[in-house]
């Protein structure tokens, strides 16, 4: 595709943002170079993306319409097309719908918590003394930079049933004895811990991005609103929030995409074998493919997950493009 495009002659309409022609250079050479150069520059990138991304994506789609199990993997049997069978199987399965609801509740909870806590901390950072602000920023950036696997391991240790510090601290409260309490014995409690882990890891990015945004809110506007009798909430609601809206939309959509896609957190927390109560869409798709060895159904589930996210992705992309156009 890119190869064909690089050879298109210079019949392109005058470029939108063409730099003024340099007076010393012959104009003809510049324009012909101008049409092909961007495609030449893009060629390696597009080539890599088409090879490593386009082909697997295509395979993901074809796979979900085939019967593909262990025997097809080893080449004993050819993969045969089965039409929509995989999808009807998946969609007709109650367990799938339980997983979908669980994933949405989990991701929704994580996103709301992340955004609210992130916003509160970002606002708080404007009020605290400089030295404390620096300290909090260092801690936030450090926890942001923590590899997910390391963070998951640390949380596993914090919430260990016998020696975990969280149970020990809770037991210090009068009348509470949590020593030996296994947080992962029940799905909802275990997922709450995992949600905490996800939120802990996601809040720093939100705080730092929102803080940067808050510095760009004009002081005069806040001042004017205050003079007009707005309280702290009024200033936030009618001045700060509208100005930050593009950033908030971007952060929320990104969070939805990320939190719908949690995998290592659940996977590692459950030692590589999440129980039925812990399955979210991604682990469920993985489970179908690599544990049950039904690669086709796993692909169908992955594809359905992508479709589920499409709306959110569209909002995110619109926002990014809007930001991208301001140059």
């Amino acid at each position, binding site marked *: 595709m890119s190869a064909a495009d690089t050879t298109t002659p210079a019949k392109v309409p005058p470029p939108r943002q063409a730099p003024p022609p340099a007076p010393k250079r012959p104009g003809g050479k510049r324009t012909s170079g101008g049409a092909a150069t961007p495609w030449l520059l893009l060629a390696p990138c597009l080539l890599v993306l088409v090879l490593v991304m386009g082909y697997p994506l295509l395979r993901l789609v074809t796979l979900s319409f085939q019967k593909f199990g262990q025997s097809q993997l080893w080449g004993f049997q050819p993969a045969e097309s089965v039409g929509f069978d995989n999808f009807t199987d998946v969609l007709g399965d109650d367990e799938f719908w339980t997983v979908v609801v669980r994933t949405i509740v989990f991701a929704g909870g994580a996103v709301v918590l992340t955004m609210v806590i992130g916003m509160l901390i970002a606002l708080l950072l404007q009020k605290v003394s400089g030295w404390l602000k620096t300290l909090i920023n260092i801690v936030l950036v450090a926890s942001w*930079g923590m590899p997910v696997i390391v963070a998951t391991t640390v949380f596993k240790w914090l919430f260990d049933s016998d020696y975990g510090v969280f149970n020990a601290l809770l037991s210090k409260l009068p009348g509470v004895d949590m020593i030996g309490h296994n947080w992962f014995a029940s799905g909802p409690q275990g997922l709450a811990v995992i949600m905490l882990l996800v939120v802990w890891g996601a809040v720093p990015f939100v705080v730092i991005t929102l803080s940067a945004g808050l510095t760009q809110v004009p002081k005069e506007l806040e001042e004017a609103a205050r003079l007009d009798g707005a309280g702290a909430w009024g200033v936030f609601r009618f001045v700060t929030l509208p100005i930050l809206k593009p950033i908030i939309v971007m952060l929320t959509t990104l969070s939805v995409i990320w939190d719908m896609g949690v995998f290592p957190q659940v996977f590692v927390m459950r030692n590589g074998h999440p129980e039925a109560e812990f399955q979210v869409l991604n682990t469920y798709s993985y489970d179908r493919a690599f544990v049950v060895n039904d690669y086709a159904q796993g692909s169908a589930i992955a594809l359905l997950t992508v479709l589920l996210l499409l709306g959110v992705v569209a909002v995110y992309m619109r926002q990014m493009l809007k930001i991208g156009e301001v140059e």
Partner: protein
Amino acid sequence: MSTATVATTDGAAPAAARRPSRLGWNLLGLLVFLVAGFPLYWMLNTAFKPAKDAIDPDPSLLPTGITFDNFDRALNIADFWGPVGRSLIVSLSVVLVGIVVGTLAALAISRFAFRGRKIVIVGILAVQMVPLVAMIIPVFLLLNDLGQYDRLTGLIITYLTFVLPFTVWTLRGFIVNIPRELEEAAMVDGCSRTGAFIRVVFPLLAPGMVATSVYAFIQAWNEYLYALMLLSQKNQTATVWLGNFTTKHGTEYAPMMAGATMMAVPIVVLFLLVQRKMAAGLTAGAVKG
């Protein structure tokens, strides 16, 4: 501290009402600091703790003495330097390819106007949105067919799927912040387009490229799922190595925290170094939209 001066320069609220509230905000801030930092602190605390103190049902919150035994144990539980070496090879190769290919593409979409530019931008953004987990099944089958299962090259190529779009988009952000007039001035003075890039744009872009490289390196280094699925046990990378502390007999937490510390500290330091630069690149112009 300088509460009084801050309050007076602020002007809007009376200074007397400000002073106690600043203290309240600071206390709240301190709480945030403690809660957010606790997991990090506890990781370090456990890593340096004598192993018997780590399995105390009523652990002391303060350090109980410093020992390096846990690190010793962590280094010996399974080969450590092999996985680290492999992670380094993979991450550095990914960064090298990503940054060269990515810079060219970023230049194209930020400095040239051409038909299809918007489609390319949308495509690169869209590719970034495809969840990695959805791709693992076809990628696994593909590498299996190509005989690239359990090879580092297979992993490197796979990592480009998420490093490359990110690199292109971030570098684009840095490039659009470099005034086009500088390049034009150089071209008026007789530079070729390539010359103008090498002499003018490149020096200005270099810090952004470094930051993007470090960030891409961290992403590749931290990746877990592909490393787990596409490499066998004997070729595991650093993130997968951390799983060795959990066996069916239980988990050795103190050495595991030592291992976690060894993995996290270099990455966190790198991250602290480039974060400011990255945040600036990511949010530039965001508010104006």
